[in-house]
């Protein structure tokens, strides 16, 4: 119940911003939505399934380029975003099949390498992508439809994660995270689930990448595949709490505000400072804000897997004598 209240209130607050907020508030929130979608997607594979990796920006970038090229060919930006989401899934399927065979640091950095390969392709095939010059797109005149599509994706991911957190599927993913061999022995189809989650975690980033390209009306390899996007996304999930329903949301909001402050005060050393902030999070708050609040049982924090807990605490149905034997 608390979860639903939090989702509805924050979604409603975010929905009124384009009508009451300034231009600046709008652009800040667009960036925030992009990061919320990225953070929730990463939380699926990294937080729930335990396959943390540094290559999500590959999907973001590939989506951005797919969308940009389609818009260049004259398609509507919404259609382009849909196609971009599909391209993310199509890339993730074979990549997941190969990369998910390894765990831990190998998967994490192997995916980072894949992102760099995608970047070098975007630079190298300059006949299609214009290489380092980048693609310039016709700017959209009205930002509101774009804003609400991003809003829908961001809060769609929140709702999806909330549903997942209270489902059998979510528990199966957690089992993979805790002990994959044991999960396998319990009959969980680990390989299929892992690849499925990986593909699911690639769709929203790719679609959002395309929408971000629409928003900027420009895309180049350095923007599309920026390692900083990756690092910021992961730091948001970590700061909020990995594998929690509201961690990525809290983390994204807090981190975006901190980044915005740092950016306006110290533009020259901004990126180094973001690195330092992330280092501080890793060293001093690795479990994240939401996990911390959950353990302290703060009143506003919904418990993890609340509906499953209710289910589990119901008295067992009385058994018939036949079954007792």
């Amino acid at each position, binding site marked *: 119940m608390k979860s639903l209240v939090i989702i509805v209130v924050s979604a409603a607050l975010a929905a009124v911003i384009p009508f009451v907020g300034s231009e600046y508030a709008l652009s800040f929130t667009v960036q925030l939505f992009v990061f919320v979608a990225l953070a929730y997607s990463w939380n699926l594979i990294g937080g729930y399934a335990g396959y943390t990796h*540094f290559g999500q920006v590959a999907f973001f970038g590939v989506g951005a380029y797919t969308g940009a090229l389609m818009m260049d060919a004259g398609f509507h930006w919404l259609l382009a975003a849909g196609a971009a989401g599909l391209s993310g899934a199509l890339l993730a399927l074979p990549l997941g099949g190969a990369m998910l065979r390894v765990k831990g640091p190998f998967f994490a950095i192997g995916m980072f390498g894949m992102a760099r390969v995608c970047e070098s392709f975007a630079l*190298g095939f300059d006949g299609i992508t214009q290489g380092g010059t980048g693609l310039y797109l016709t700017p959209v005149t009205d930002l509101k439809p774009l804003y609400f599509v991003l809003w829908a994706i961001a809060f769609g991911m929140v709702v999806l994660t909330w549903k997942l957190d209270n489902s059998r599927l979510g528990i199966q993913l957690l089992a993979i995270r805790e002990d994959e061999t044991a999960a396998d022995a319990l009959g969980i189809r680990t390989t299929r689930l892992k690849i499925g989650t990986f593909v699911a975690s690639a769709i929203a980033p790719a679609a959002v990448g395309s929408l971000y390209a629409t928003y900027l009306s420009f895309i180049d390899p350095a923007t599309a595949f920026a*390692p900083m996007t990756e690092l910021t996304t992961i730091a948001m999930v970590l700061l909020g709490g990995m594998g929690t329903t509201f961690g990525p949301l809290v983390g994204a909001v807090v981190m975006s505000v901190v980044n915005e402050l740092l950016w306006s005060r110290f533009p020259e050393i901004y*990126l180094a400072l973001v690195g330092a902030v992330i280092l501080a999070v890793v060293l001093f708050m690795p479990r994240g804000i939401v996990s911390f609040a959950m353990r302290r049982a703060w009143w506003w924090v919904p418990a993890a897997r609340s509906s499953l807990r209710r289910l589990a605490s119901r008295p067992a149905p009385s058994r018939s004598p036949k079954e007792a034997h």
Partner: protein
Amino acid sequence: MPVFELLIAGILLGGLYALMACGLNLVFGVMRIINFAHGDLLAVGALTTVSIVTGLHLPFYVAIVVVPLLTAALGLAMQVLVLRRLADGPMIMSLLATFALSTILVNLSILIWGGGYRGLPGVLGGSVHLLGLDVALSRLVSFLVAMAVTLLVWWFLQSTRFGRAIRSVSQAPELAVINGISIDAVRNVTFALGAAMAGLAGVLLAPTFASDPQLGARFGIKAFAVIIVGGMGSYPGAMAAALLLGVLEVFGGYWFGQVIGSAMLFLVMLVVLLVRPRGLLGMGVRA
């Protein structure tokens, strides 16, 4: 097609990869993490070399001695101040910490040296006649120094008491502790050694390649592909894979252009992951 020339060029490049990848692999062995900032230590090494030679007008061999010491100190500081505190936590925390350290190093390097490319004109210029080919002196010297140091470190690991301690920590940390080996000391020394190897690789590539603060991402990631192909934790595996991938990159670049040539390392890595996940000579990657 100049097969022989490409082969030599590939092996010379592979020598540098070997030095870089063996340092990374060594650190992985005792820490069980991949140091993301390894490539950035290399970039700092290369840029410091440029400053020493063109800024301070000192000879190149000064850099060969001084820069590895500097990066070793930097690496030791990273280990003592940050990574040691995370050693017993989940892997993702250490990895993320090295990712953050890498970002900090890159951006501080941009502040110090600027974002542009810097070369070392005139250092080890010219070429030598070797096996009927003209080989650039800078590449030959880089290769020889890199291979010499890589082999020296291998000898150190195989034949000295401390080298055995490093190997025992990487193979069976619990047993190493029971035998009175200080894991902390081994980790500190290994991290410094790995960082020194990265710095030296930076020094050696400065005369041949243009250096910039982003150099680390380009080269460090190749070192990673090398150790996946060679096998995690396997020192000879990394050496062999480095030479192999150097040759592959040069041939790929000749056939398909520079971009695909570099990407080819990763395609090879993917194939190795699919066909033989533990690498050519590895002890297994499901760590």
